[in-house]
């Protein structure tokens, strides 16, 4: 599975570098040097891989990442941090940067959906959101103030399920941690988080549910207006929308925009 994905990525990369060499004729000398990408923490694994692919395609380029919560990154950019590209886990935090006049025309490059994370083997036989209303089940949700919590509330409203969790966690990783530590029986988290947990330790599985389609989280991307390395920033932004980058993202559980 993993090798097939890597194979597609490599093939797409070859195709892209072929395109790149024709474009080099007009923009030669502009793309190069270090490009600084501020990206949401949930993109850590995928963007690191995409960045390495991008560097391989163009040896003159170095990609540096700063991964953190989207709201912190937005605040940093608005305080003048030297970012070239901003990739936010939700449109709301991108809007803060756009409203401050620091970026324009953000584009959606990936989507993420919620799944119900349960212990491996699904011991409580959870099949959908309605099962979580069982008072015998301990459930962890993200707080509504953070994106995964807002999405969870939207999905629960769409399903007409009233749910009292034992805790409203401050971020999605902490929510999943309560499940992997065995303190809760189910948690609403992103599909990518479950995929990452399965890849590293296992012990978790994801249950898909139809109402998650009502609460899709858009990942948006923009080149920062004061980008120190604008040409390379635009090249990286374009690469993120290539088939090669999309293959990395979908392998991690993201969906195409």
């Amino acid at each position, binding site marked *: 599975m993993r090798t097939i994905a890597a194979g597609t990525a490599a093939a797409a990369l070859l195709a892209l570098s072929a395109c790149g060499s024709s474009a080099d004729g007009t923009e030669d000398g502009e793309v190069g040097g270090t490009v600084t990408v501020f990206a949401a923490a949930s993109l850590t694994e995928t963007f690191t891989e995409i960045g390495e692919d991008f560097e391989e395609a163009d040896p003159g380029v170095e990609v540096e990442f700063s991964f953190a919560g989207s*709201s912190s990154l937005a605040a940093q950019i608005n305080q003048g941090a030297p970012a070239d590209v901003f990739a936010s886990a939700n449109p709301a935090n991108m809007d803060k940067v756009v409203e401050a006049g620091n970026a324009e025309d953000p584009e959606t490059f990936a989507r993420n959906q919620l799944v119900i994370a349960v212990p491996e083997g699904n011991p409580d036989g959870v099949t959908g959101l309605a099962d979580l209303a069982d008072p015998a089940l*301990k459930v*962890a949700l993200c*707080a509504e*103030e*953070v994106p995964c919590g807002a999405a969870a509330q939207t999905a629960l409203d769409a399903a007409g399920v009233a749910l009292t*969790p*034992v*805790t*409203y*966690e*401050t971020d999605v990783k*902490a929510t999943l941690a*309560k499940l992997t*530590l*065995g*303190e809760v029986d189910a948690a609403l988290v992103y599909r990518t988080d479950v995929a990452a947990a399965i890849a590293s330790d296992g012990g978790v599985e994801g249950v898909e549910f139809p109402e998650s389609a009502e609460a899709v989280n858009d990942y948006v991307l923009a080149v920062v207006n004061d980008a120190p390395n604008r040409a390379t920033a635009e090249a990286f932004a374009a690469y993120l929308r290539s088939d090669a980058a999309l293959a990395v993202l979908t392998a991690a559980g993201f969906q195409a925009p």
Partner: protein
Amino acid sequence: MVLLVPALLGLAFLTLPLAGLVIRAPWGTMPQRLAEPEVLDALRLSVVTATAATGLCLLLGIPLAWLLARVDFRGKGLVRALVTVPLVLPPVVGGVALLLVFGRNGLVGAPLHEAFGVSLPFTTAGVVAAMAFVAMPFLVVSVEGALRGADVRYEEAAATLGAGRWSVFIHVTIPLVAPGIAAGAVLCWARALGEFGATITFAGNFPGRTQTMPLAVYLALETDLEAAIVLSLILLAVSVTVLACLRDRWTATP
């Protein structure tokens, strides 16, 4: 004079961030924000749990301090170092460690859950446990220092006059080190009131049950900076008032 300059710089360094909060606070909408039930819930929970945690620390911490100060045993240096571990441990790690011991699948928590169906995580008692874990070293270190500084001849005199060990401890030792206990309790309470990392990790976050003021501040920061500032100022006002009133009164009396 040589000391005055760094002293004033130190004071400025400690108080300027507080001034920043006061200046940035939305004073106009303060009354409405204060009246919100969530704010009062979080404040009440914080005060109640921090006080309960201080009580627990006094109950367990004074005997522990006495053990370290008055009883000679092998490996005392190591035990003393272990007591201060929560001071250097990142509180979030402390919370995870508490989960591994008192959680539903923990060393102590699993048999407890099997036998009685109770578990500490996600309960108000869990908040008290998390606070006591991070705050107890402040009390133990302070009381142990007072015990070591106290004159053992008073205790010896009481013993020669026929007082038993317990009687000496209650009627001589405790009054002798009362200022140290009070100072330790105040520090312990203040640390418990500001506790964030161990609480969110071990007890989770649920309004009215485990959402203390620092947790409410953190979440407010995600969406509404002004609300976060208001909550911080309330927490600061309550703690500064209590500390200013108690500390002088308790620690000044011999």
